[in-house]
């Protein structure tokens, strides 16, 4: 390599070229930095309240504890998980995967980042001033009438960030419909694109309802008009219905992109076309549709009518089916494939196992009788952390590792990455498995103190959390290191199929010199080819 090549990272210089960019790849990087910062903010809260839970009588006051877990939830859900893969990996990869130069609306893409930042500023302001203590669910009438915390500021942060999500979804939908290269039919799309397209549909349809819910909450808080206040004729359950109408689909926003990543990784590291491509693609769409009709399962103990509960319970069982179809298909992809154990694949294994546990425990919660026993306990906390952290965050890290050479043109250190993956896996299970037991034994969530007999399991959980925290720090360090000092990567270090691997690492600003014409089916692997050793990566 005699001369330094021009690519999207070094094509233009100066802070204006980054802050006023319309290049989807640069915007993805801006998002990556922002959400990583928010992840550490939310993670710090978690470390603090897990320290509190070392002692049965608690260490901080109940007030402080309530604010810590509330801000942890708000930051992690709205400012980390919802944007995570869509705004970073999908933003970067979708145009390249379909053979386009950029998204359909590049300036709206940049606008969505600025909106996210403004929302994050509101949230950070709320945190600095002391946070909210309502839980991320903002239930009325506590949030609307009685709480003495910064509900309005936090709610406005969420409201604003919601528009960032809507614009991202809108951009993806139009891009996938209108900007595919010649020959890139729907059935040739990578499954990652299908997953993010389905996510975009949910974002576009569900987030506006959150927007109006939060707005109504804000008016209630300012003017006390009574929409959610039972003293003057309002109904707090209405808040819950409106809130969960968005927030249930939101959890599918927070998992579908991860599933898309896993489809890509499993295919590449099994050297095989994903088993049941159509089933995986349509299951993403099925999840998107069904996600809108199960919100009542968050409200089984709020006095829902019996037949309503039965209907929601049945539909919640149904929504598990497409997810299970994906798990079976990934497993079938590995069968008789040539499986290698690079770091992205290790994260994929972790995802498949942990998401399965999380998903199965979701079925316990869909069943009415067990939900009544475990609602509001640590069983629920463990369930959603298994799917969100054991699932989505693992998928996010796996995807980061898989596409890192493409995004930065550098390789991360494989030994450290495998080590970090192990630490994360061990730390994660140590943190959250005891919580299933705690929940089953009856320990309620959102309490700063607990009966002494639960202490041992809580201490285990906190120990796990510290290990998990260290596990997350290690990739931050070696990823940062690799940007300057990592070995340079070739265009296709994994020998993977897909348009993104046909262009340089890192890509040039407009991705393709000429629009490609797609003639082959997606995932053109053949099982007989063996994976080349890592030494050939450098060059």
């Amino acid at each position: 390599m005699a001369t330094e090549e021009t690519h999207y990272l070094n094509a233009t210089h100066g802070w204006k070229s980054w802050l006023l960019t319309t290049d989807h790849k640069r915007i993805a990087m801006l998002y990556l930095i922002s959400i990583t910062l928010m992840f550490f903010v939310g993670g710090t809260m978690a470390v603090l309240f897990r320290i509190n839970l070392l002692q049965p009588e608690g260490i901080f006051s109940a007030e402080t504890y309530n604010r810590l877990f509330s801000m942890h939830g708000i930051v992690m859900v709205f400012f980390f998980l919802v944007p995570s893969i869509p705004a970073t990996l999908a933003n970067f990869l979708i145009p390249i995967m379909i053979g386009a130069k950029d998204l359909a609306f590049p300036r709206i893409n940049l606008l969505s980042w600025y909106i996210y930042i403004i929302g994050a500023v509101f949230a950070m302001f709320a945190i600095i001033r002391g946070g909210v203590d309502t839980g991320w669910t903002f239930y009325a009438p506590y949030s609307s009438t009685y709480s003495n915390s910064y509900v309005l500021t936090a709610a406005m942060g969420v409201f604003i960030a919601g528009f960032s999500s809507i614009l991202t979804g809108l951009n993806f939908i139009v891009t996938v419909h209108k900007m595919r290269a010649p020959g890139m039919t729907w059935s040739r799309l990578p499954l990652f694109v299908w997953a993010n397209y389905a996510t975009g549909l949910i974002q576009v349809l569900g987030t506006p309802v959150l927007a109006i819910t939060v707005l109504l909450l804000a008016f209630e808080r300012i003017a006390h008009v009574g929409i959610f206040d039972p003293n003057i004729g309002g109904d707090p359950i209405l808040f819950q219905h409106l809130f969960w109408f968005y927030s249930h689909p939101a959890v599918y926003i927070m998992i579908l992109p991860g599933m898309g990543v896993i489809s890509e990784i499993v295919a590449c590291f099994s050297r095989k076309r994903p088993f049941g491509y159509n089933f995986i693609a349509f299951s993403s769409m099925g999840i998107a549709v069904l996600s809108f009709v199960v919100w009542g399962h968050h409200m089984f103990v709020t006095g829902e009518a019996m037949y309503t509960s039965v209907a929601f319970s049945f539909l919640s069982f149904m929504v598990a089916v497409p997810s299970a179809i994906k798990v079976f298909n990934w497993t079938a992809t590995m069968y008789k494939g040539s499986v290698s154990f690079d770091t992205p694949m290790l994260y994929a294994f972790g995802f498949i196992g942990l998401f399965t546990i999380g998903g199965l425990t979701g079925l316990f919660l869909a069943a009415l009788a067990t939900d009544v026993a475990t609602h509001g306990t640590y069983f629920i906390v463990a369930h959603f952390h298994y799917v969100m952290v054991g699932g989505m965050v693992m998928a996010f890290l796996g995807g980061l590792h898989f596409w890192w050479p493409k995004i930065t043109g550098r390789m991360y250190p494989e030994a450290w990455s495998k080590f970090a993956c192990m630490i994360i896996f061990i730390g994660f299970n140590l943190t959250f498995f005891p919580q299933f037991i705690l929940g089953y034994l009856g320990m309620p969530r959102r309490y700063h103190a607990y009966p002494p007999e639960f202490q041992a399991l809580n201490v285990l959980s906190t120990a796990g959390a510290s290990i998990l925290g260290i596990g997350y720090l290690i990739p931050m360090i070696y990823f940062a290191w690799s940007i300057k000092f990592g070995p340079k990567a070739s265009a296709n270090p994994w020998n993977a199929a897909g348009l993104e691997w046909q262009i340089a690492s890192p890509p040039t600003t407009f991705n393709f010199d000429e629009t490609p014409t797609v003639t082959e089916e997606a995932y053109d692997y053949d099982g007989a080819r063996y994976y080349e050793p890592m030494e050939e990566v450098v060059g």
Partner: protein
Amino acid sequence: MLGMWTFLITEVLFFGGMFGAYAVYRNMYPGAFASTSRYMDVVLGGTNTAVLICSSLTMVLAVRAAQLSKRKDLILFLILTMIFGSAFLGVKAFEYHSKWVEHLVPGFGFQYEHAPEYLHPAQLLFFLYFCMTGMHAIHMIVGLGLLTYLLVQAVRNQYNEYYFAPVEMIGLYWHFVDVVWIFLFPLLYLIGQRH
């Protein structure tokens, strides 16, 4: 265009949340909601409805003019649409003012003398009235801003039969805002009326 349709679908969901709240509370307090109709001036509301429908007509004619490269007609119809839109907002402002004078603004000294047993549910209805028509008015103001942009561009002769997409897209937005009003008007003004 697909982008604008997708955005409008999000707007449907956005307003839908408020319509949902309205449906729930009206179901719970039918008597109270019906009693509020005496404060809703059907003449003004009906006039506003007619005004908006006319504005949608002039908007469609504007799109047609752009498609036929008729610059003068395009400018004329855009201006007419804006006049109708402003008239709507003017009537709305007058209605808001009279609500204020009659102490019917929730949170600011709300009173309901003629049927005190309905005080709280009526307050709910008026809150929803202000929320829904307020959100609608904000969307109309944004629409007027977009129409101003179109007008400036039309004066600069930017639209013709080869390129009229922005006129079409903003026309679609304008029609959507009109349709929202078509739903709002009967739900807020015509309940409990015995005409």
